């Protein structure tokens, strides 16, 4: 069974600075997707970024980028120029392929962006 670990239950960062959230996973699969989701306080979960395991290039979405190390089974999220609106719970998630596998979420990291 796959597992996803986020070793940082809580983190904080000053506004405009950069922060990196860690995620490691365990799987014997070779083809899968990895995701980072953001859940602001009392608000809906939204997708931040997605990475296909077969792609070597790290995914980027504006201020969000990942460092995907397949051999190390590591998938960290870097947030540049942190904004107050980035304050949220961040969940790393894994989904194996092909069709038929469900999602596995990590326990989450609570990020606070400080003014």
């Amino acid at each position, binding site marked *: 069974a796959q597992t996803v670990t986020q070793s940082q239950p809580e983190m904080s960062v000053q506004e405009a600075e950069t922060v990196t959230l860690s995620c490691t996973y365990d799987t014997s699969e070779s083809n899968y*997707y990895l*995701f980072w*989701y953001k859940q602001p306080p009392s608000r*809906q*979960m*939204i*997708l931040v970024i*997605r990475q296909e395991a077969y792609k070597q290039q790290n995914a980027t979405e504006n201020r969000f980028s990942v460092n995907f190390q397949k051999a190390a089974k590591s998938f960290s999220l870097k947030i540049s120029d942190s904004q107050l609106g980035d304050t949220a*719970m961040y*969940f790393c*998630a894994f*989904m194996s*392929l092909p*069709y*038929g596998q*469900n*999602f596995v*979420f*990590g*326990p*989450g990291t*609570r990020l606070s962006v400080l003014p």
Partner: protein
Amino acid sequence: EADIYQTPRYLVIGTGKKITLECSQTMGHDKMYWYQQDPGMELHLIHYSYGVNSTEKGDLSSESTVSRIRTEHFPLTLESARPSHTSQYLCVAGGLYNEQFFGPGTRLTVL
């Protein structure tokens, strides 16, 4: 994208009541999921479906049942609610690229 709707958004009921949490999505995605999440905590998969007439239990035994008679509709039923069922319930649809689109959630309190 998938628009995901959940009703009710908030529900307070007494122990022993039967309740159904509604979930619908407008984009025709085959995969749908129910997660249970205590506020600010991790998510636990309780049911999932890969299409009409397909339902499976997830990792968490929640004493609930689901049905998938139509692609767009995936209701969750608790036959006899207990205080231990107090939580937030998130309905999710799986997108074309395997991302998950979350509904706004139903926050359930069982007294």
